[in-house]
């Protein structure tokens, strides 16, 4: 009987752990980060000396690549993390597995999960949340917030309307098929921020697109991550991909290449990426 009670309380404890909060961490001096956008936020706030390790999605800025690696954001290892003696594990929505986070909490290490919302306000909230967890109240924070708010204001004038151009955001080419973002993806949020209509309607999540469905969606712009372009073997090769040439984007050579993490990471860089994307697509 006692073991059942114990088991239940463990399960409930695990449930509670999933909650997100931005409360001040008791000791944010040594931080292990699981999630590229959080790493970007720490560098953005000038607090990078606190970082003791980052996960494999943290590839910006360049300096972050030299930090100790804790593996993939969803495949963390408890003992590996503990060996770095962090006081706080700060991560994105999808850090895990939950069992590892539960074990970290058990050893008295704070784990904080920062909420992910794919809007401009969501980015500002993310930065504020991290600043709050670190108990930051300095001039740098004020300046950093001001920069973000001015970009946010600039984006507010950009809205999606009937006249807005349509686009498809391609993350990757896999076996010739474009992996593109439908509803409920970071890509969808990015396009909306930049005042672009997502041409992929009625598709949820990241899906491989056949040539025919690409032609049917007929986007005005094709937005590609660097990774997608290099997977295809260059922009010229993208034009030769079946379907691309027959879309409006192909006909007018409206192919836009940008860094994937800056567009889809929803860190501080994403606001300027959205502004740039809206400038590129509205001017023509």
């Amino acid at each position: 009987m006692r073991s059942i009670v114990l088991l239940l309380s463990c399960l409930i404890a695990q449930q509670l752990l999933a909650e997100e909060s931005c409360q001040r961490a008791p000791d944010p001096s040594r931080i292990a980060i699981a999630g590229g956008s959080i790493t970007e936020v720490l560098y953005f706030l000038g607090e990078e000396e606190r970082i003791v390790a980052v996960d494999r999605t943290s590839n910006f800025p360049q300096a972050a690549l030299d930090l100790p690696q804790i593996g993939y954001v969803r495949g963390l290892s408890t003992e590996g993390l503990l060996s770095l003696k962090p006081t706080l594990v700060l991560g994105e929505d999808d850090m895990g597995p939950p069992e590892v986070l539960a074990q970290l909490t058990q050893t008295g290490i704070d784990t904080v999960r920062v909420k992910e919302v794919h809007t401009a306000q969501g980015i500002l909230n993310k930065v504020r949340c991290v600043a709050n967890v670190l108990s930051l109240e300095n001039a740098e924070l004020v300046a950093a917030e001001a920069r973000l708010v001015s970009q946010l204001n600039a984006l507010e004038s950009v809205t999606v309307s009937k006249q807005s151009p349509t686009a498809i955001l391609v993350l990757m080419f896999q076996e010739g098929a474009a992996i593109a973002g439908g509803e409920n993806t970071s890509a969808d949020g990015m396009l909306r921020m930049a005042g672009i209509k997502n041409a992929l309607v009625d598709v949820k999540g990241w899906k491989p697109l056949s040539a025919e469905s690409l032609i049917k969606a007929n986007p005005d712009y094709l937005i590609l991550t660097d990774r997608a372009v290099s997977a295809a073997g260059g922009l010229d090769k993208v034009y030769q991909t079946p379907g691309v040439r027959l879309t409006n984007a192909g006909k007018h050579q409206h192919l836009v290449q940008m860094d994937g993490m800056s567009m889809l990471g929803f860190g501080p860089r994403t606001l300027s990426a959205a502004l740039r994307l809206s400038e590129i697509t509205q001017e023509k």
Partner: protein
Amino acid sequence: MMRAWVLPSLIGVKFKSGKFVGLGVLLVASFVAGLSQGAVSIPLLGLVNGSATELEQIVFAEIRAPRVFLAGFVGASLALSGAVLQGLFRNPLADPGLIGVSSGAAVGAISMIVLGAALSIPDWAEAYVMPLAAMSGAMAVTFLLYSFANYFGRFSVVTILLVGIALNAMAGVVIGLFQYVSDDAQLRTLVFWLMGSFSRAQWASVLPAIGVMVGASLVLLRQVKNLDRLQLGESEAYYLGVDVPRAKRHMILCSAAAVGAGVSLTGIIGFVGLVVPHLARLFLGSSHRLTLAGSVLIGASLMILADLLARTVMVPEELPVSLVTNAIGAPFFLWLIARAARS
């Protein structure tokens, strides 16, 4: 550790005492190595005399210990199931991974990762739903295999591998389908889960699984006589007093339960069920008493060591343990085929 001593006498092995003592020592040694080594250095002596810090104690008791126990029991179960399936199918290449039993368990478990949310399972039941689904998947595949075997008479080595390829491909289709309909977060859980790892070990989930594995293993170990007699053929076994349908039912259900309970926590871990029984046979001889008991000891030791390697070679990151077992198992598999081709 108790098992090392209890097991052989439990099933009445005429002691090949020297070798079994050796295997017992190996198991104890790998157990101690597994518990004492890791990314965080914990002096075992400090735990005994109480000088260890609270952190060290927690890491040891709540993180490392459940993991080492899970690895040991999963290794023993996979090896034992492999040995029993090899005996039941009278086929030396039967392995839960190769013939599709593990994939069946994977399909069951994955269906819960993806569909679980839609079924609105109460929180308290969640820890049990995955193992149950995995076990049902493993059982379905084993039954399918067995009815095939019954229908066509005894399987040849080649046939069982071909059927295994087909079943694995079918499982691959279902898994692929689930990957397609799953959302981002589910997909990532799924991919990591498929790789096979003991990193999810927590007492709350490990203990029920160990219970199932021990129960199923005890039933399997009682089948030694039946397995020996089944080697002569089913009708011969029947005339020797074996209740053949009952024996088969027990073997199929319990090996599927043992594999399923393990797979639901760890994902697919290949080749242990194939390699270990062969090692046991080479080392101890081909009587099922020796093979089965040896498989349990060797399986547990090897799995603990493989996991130790997986979590210590690239600290603070971790290798999937199936990478380690496949690296050892695949060449061994080739060697087995070469040996079979020569004779």
